[in-house]
């Protein structure tokens, strides 16, 4: 039997406001000592009055607009009641029946095969305190309590773990372009829960819907959903009932039961009486719409038309805003060069050797020790024929480790390309003398033997010889012989 997977994603995003959602405590608690960003409001003391952070509302409206949602003219906050020690007040201020944004969409996949995922809602709420579990007791740090949290819920339109990953990558990219969140999964500013079920292809019947939690990276989401898809398929085939339940992902590669449906919460939502409703005027919404920055899709198109990049290269470059900014800084630094050729050269470096160096040093492009002007200088050295491609790769690696300037590195290590016939003659003489077999192969009509000889020249010059010049000189010598 063929099965179809049905996935809906719920993403929580911490907003990058300066202060918390309903009080003036600093929202930047990373690295802060415990319970130092706390006031009576976020501590949940009785008798306090929360006040809405206008920037958090603006960020949420921006996000809702970027996701093509309609913005409700009148929106309000509600109390979601439950008891857990991470919740200081015994309720979380959230939005229930009047979220800021509703009915949007996000498109995923390549331009030629776009897939639309409907967005159910975008709403605003507050984060909860952090618990640390010890042996026999727990510790509470209230710093995170009250940090603005935006929730983005998709319809169950996603059909595979790959699509789920594409959706998250695209969503994160949009949030980073909007500048509303750092959207970093490992740091907890971007969290994802998934609902997943399977059904026989063609059937609209849904089996037990399983909620998967505790996935702390894109890779974890992908692995957890792949695991869960397979677990449910096997259960179905063996005739087991797939229970509606909450399961947690464990890094060793399995999901385990956390809570069965019997304990499903009744949150007893009711309107938050301490917060007057919000009426967002058409003027306000239009103002926010006009202020939206260029988004990844628009930038991707612009990279194709302005720089002549391939759709694939421009997609990969623009998905990470910092990478796209880096690319454009490089282009702006050298306006004298012909655009498509230079753009292609920069793109190749960024997507290839440069990304490779970032990955092996485990650093983000924002913290790259190689600034755009230095990468440009390296590319210029190649374009001017001063160094070979092989040398350039070594130089880039050294730039990453020492932070040095490419020209200084080339000078200090004597890496300038040998484009001078006289200098190469000497090396070529030696190579010919040491490789009689290749020489006779060539003379007996195997022209490809010259490649081996050029390789030997490159080796002896540690990659510094101009390979075209070396080939020319070699063939001349061989003809004469």
């Amino acid at each position, binding site marked *: 039997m063929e099965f179809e997977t049905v996935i809906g994603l719920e993403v929580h995003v911490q907003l990058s406001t300066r202060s918390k959602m309903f009080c003036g405590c600093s929202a930047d608690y990373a690295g802060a000592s415990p319970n130092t960003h706390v006031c009576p409001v976020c501590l949940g003391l009785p008798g306090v009055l929360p006040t809405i952070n206008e920037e958090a509302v603006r960020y949420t409206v921006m996000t809702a607009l970027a996701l093509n949602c309609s913005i409700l003219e009148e929106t309000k906050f509600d109390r979601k009641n439950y008891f857990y020690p991470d919740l200081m007040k015994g309720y979380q201020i959230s939005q229930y029946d009047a979220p800021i944004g509703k009915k949007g969409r996000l498109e995923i996949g390549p331009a030629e095969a776009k897939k639309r995922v409907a967005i159910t809602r975008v709403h605003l709420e507050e984060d909860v305190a952090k618990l640390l579990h010890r042996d026999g007791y727990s510790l509470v740090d209230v710093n995170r309590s009250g940090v603005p949290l935006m929730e983005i819920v998709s319809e169950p339109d996603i059909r595979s773990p790959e699509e789920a990953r594409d959706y998250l990558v695209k969503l994160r990219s949009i949030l980073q372009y909007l500048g509303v969140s750092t959207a970093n999964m490992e740091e907890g500013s971007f969290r994802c829960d998934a609902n997943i079920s399977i059904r026989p292809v063609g059937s609209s019947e849904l089996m037990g819907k399983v909620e998967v939690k505790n996935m702390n990276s894109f890779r974890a989401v992908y692995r957890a959903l792949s695991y869960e898809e397979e677990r449910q398929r096997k259960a179905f085939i063996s005739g087991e009932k797939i229970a509606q339940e909450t399961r947690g992902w464990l890094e060793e590669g399995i999901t385990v039961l956390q809570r069965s449906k019997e304990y499903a919460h009744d949150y007893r939502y009711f309107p938050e*009486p301490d917060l007057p409703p919000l009426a967002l005027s058409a003027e306000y919404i239009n103002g926010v719409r006009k202020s939206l920055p260029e988004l990844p899709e628009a930038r991707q198109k612009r990279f194709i038309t302005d720089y002549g990049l391939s759709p694939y290269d421009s997609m990969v470059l623009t998905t990470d805003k910092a990478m796209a900014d880096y690319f454009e800084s490089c282009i702006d630094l050298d306006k004298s060069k012909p655009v498509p050729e230079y753009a292609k050269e920069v793109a190749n470096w960024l997507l290839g050797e440069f990304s490779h160096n970032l990955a092996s040093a485990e650093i983000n492009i924002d913290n790259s020790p190689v600034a755009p002007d230095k990468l440009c200088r390296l590319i210029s050295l190649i374009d001017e024929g001063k160094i070979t491609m092989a040398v350039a790769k070594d130089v880039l690696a050294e730039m990453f480790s020492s932070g040095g300037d490419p020209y200084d590195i080339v000078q200090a290590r004597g890496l300038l390309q040998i484009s001078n016939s006289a200098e190469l003659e000497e090396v070529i003489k030696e190579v010919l003398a040491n490789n009689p077999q290749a020489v006779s192969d060539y003379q007996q009509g195997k022209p490809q033997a010259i490649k081996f000889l050029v390789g030997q020249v490159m080796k002896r010059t540690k990659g510094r010889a101009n390979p075209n010049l070396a080939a020319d000189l070699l063939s001349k010598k061989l003809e004469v012989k």
Partner: protein
Amino acid sequence: MALSKEEVSRIAELARLKLDDGEVEKFTTQLSYILEQFQILQEVDTTDIPPTAQATPIKNVLRKDEVKPSLSVEEVLANAPDREGDFLRINTVLG
């Protein structure tokens, strides 16, 4: 409708409040009085009045995104029954 001292003690326990005998006495009188006031309110006919969570027509009360000073850790933990370093310490909960 008067509350009993036992009911007030039970409410205090649920709210994790420690009351001495004098306070129990005082709040039994006060809370009973509040209940009486609500009984009067309940006599008002609200048949055609839509429910609301807001008592005023005020909308859009927002604040600028500005950081204000927080409490000191000592103030934050002043009411905590138990602490460990600068953390609140609580009975164990299941993650």
